[in-house]
């Protein structure tokens, strides 16, 4: 009887303590944004890993479209050939890096061709220069942007997020943002240089719609990859996936380690329980 009560109390307390952080985290980013559809990402869930082809396509979108305004200061060329990423070969990365000039005080003319160890060169020399070129708005750095955005789920959806390990709020938001450009509704006051976006907080965004159908000619298809549509929807998925990888380049190895660790802990706990039971055998408690 006593132990029943303890079990009930334990469940209640455990539930309560789990609910605490859950309730707290409900207040995610993107507070005043409308409902954001969840995309079926290949890297979602505990078994999820990146799709190499998607990352290569996303990288191409970033390189040809986004990179003209958005920096990615923590992104190194060498990351592109690391395991679990877009899967470029080291030779490809070396050739790619050589196409870019990076600042270097010790080189002639203060710039030189990049090597794989270099970081991705920023499009502007300073934040102020970036603002001047963009009508006062600062294009955010892409390095961890996919983790710097979130969606707030209504009750009780968020409670399940702890058990499904839902970590894709940021990319869901970015995908929704890139596909969320619309005509401003009647009477909505837009300043010059602003555009109406359904999911952007306040709806007035300074970034012009960056993607149009056909703007990027996917190299992956030519190289024998699967034929993918060259549409805004596809581009925004691919570049969002790429941004997730930028923010979390070692996601696959992290999850793989997690399986090994948890399997070990479960087996170890079983052995510990057996030992504990053996020791306590015959002691009424």
């Amino acid at each position: 009887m006593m132990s029943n009560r303890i079990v009930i109390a334990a469940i209640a307390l455990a539930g309560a303590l789990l609910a605490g952080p859950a309730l707290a985290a409900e207040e995610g980013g993107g507070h005043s944004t409308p409902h954001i559809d969840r995309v079926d990402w290949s890297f979602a869930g505990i078994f999820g890993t990146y799709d190499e082809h998607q990352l290569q396509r996303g990288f191409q979108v970033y390189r040809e479209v986004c990179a003209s305004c958005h920096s990615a200061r923590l992104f190194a060329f060498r990351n592109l050939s690391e395991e679990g990423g877009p899967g470029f070969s080291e030779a490809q990365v070396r050739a790619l890096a050589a196409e870019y000039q990076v600042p270097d005080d010790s080189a002639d003319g203060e710039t030189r061709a990049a090597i794989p160890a270099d970081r991705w060169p920023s499009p502007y020399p300073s934040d102020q220069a970036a603002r001047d070129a963009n009508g006062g708005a600062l294009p955010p750095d892409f390095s961890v942007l996919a983790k710097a955005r979130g969606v707030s789920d209504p009750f009780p959806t968020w409670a399940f997020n702890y058990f499904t390990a839902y970590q894709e709020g940021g990319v869901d938001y970015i995908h929704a943002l890139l596909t969320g450009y619309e005509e401003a509704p009647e009477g909505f006051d837009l300043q010059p240089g602003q555009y109406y976006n359904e999911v952007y907080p306040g709806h007035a965004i300074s970034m012009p719609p960056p993607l149009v159908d056909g703007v990027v000619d996917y190299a992956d298809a030519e190289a024998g990859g699967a034929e993918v549509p060259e549409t805004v929807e596809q581009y925004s998925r691919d570049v969002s996936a790429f941004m997730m990888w930028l923010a979390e380049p070692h996601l696959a190895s992290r999850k793989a380690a997690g399986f090994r660790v948890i399997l070990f802990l479960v087996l170890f706990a079983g052995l510990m329980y057996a030992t504990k039971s053996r020791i306590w055998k015959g002691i009424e408690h």
Partner: protein
Amino acid sequence: MDFPTPKNLNYFWTFGAILVMCLGIQIITGIVLAMHYTPNIAMAFDSVEHIRRDVNGGRIIQAVHAVGASMFFAALYIHIFRGLYFGSYKAPREILWILGVIIFILTMATAFMGYILPWGQMSFWGATVITNIFSAVPIVGESLQVLLRGGFAVGNPTLNRFFSLHYLLPFIIAAVVALHIWALHVPGNNNPIGVEVKSKRDTVPFHPYYTMKDMFAMVVFLIPFAWFVFFAPDILGHPDNYIQANSQVTPEHIVPEWYLLPFYTILRAIDFNVLFIDSKLGGVIAMAGSMLLLVVLPWLDRSPVRSGNFRPLFRWFYWLFVINFIGLTYLGAQPAEGIYTLLAKICVAYYFIYFLVILPLLSRIETPKPLPTSISESVLKKAHA
């Protein structure tokens, strides 16, 4: 190791050992992180990302440290609420309890300072809000605030001194933990029926019985810990902290980490002036009071019966207190507007009424259920039931 321990302890009594493990994990991972971290406002944010991206094993060490803070507090709250239910604060364990309250407050301070170090938006604005609190202290408030910040606003000196203190405080916590364990060894453990140990038959030696049970519980505790570290390392944090601190842009809502939310709600709930005390100072008094109240708890609850199992009335108020505390946590994450401010006031009121009115009153009016004469008797009855 032959410390005689009541043989009827349930699994809630394993959280003490779990907390020692948590402190150990935080200190070890923290020392390694400090080898790679740069406490400078221009470099702190990138240096944390450098640890996660470029340092061997860094992403696991960093995630263990960040998730570890949440797990530490989860265990800490279970440990405290266990003490509240089973009356572990009552004589002769007042010193043990007070040392525990000191550890709790020191841990909150340490966790808060640790959260500043990644220098994200929530770090910066959290530091701004919390250091602002100190300016409410009469007469010395302004100087105190400047001393804490190392200037008139949160900046590089703030980050440096918080880093220094964040490194120092865990060792002070470890020292108080040593005192806490010493203070435990004088009167011995409380137990789920709250009846003191009467004879040797009531106890078993700590080793191997409780060393083994505690180690088993630690391993089980590491399973959800690992779940968060490897599968959802960011879910307990706030996305805004992946934006580098910017004194020019205020986040829409400034929210502390979940484990500080109940006290943040108490701080914010006082939005009215009381006589010569303005709302700001009132909030600070309420928040400080809510923690200091725990110190005098042994003298507020005069009921001679320790365990909530034998206190039919107490149990109702206790579980309401637990729900209320979760309510305080929830409200801390909500904007201070509309219905939330009213709910916050109700929850804060119950928090104080529970300690100041209900517990003293209950000890007078409640008729406890008959207590077993000894631990052995209760254990044997359970075995035959």
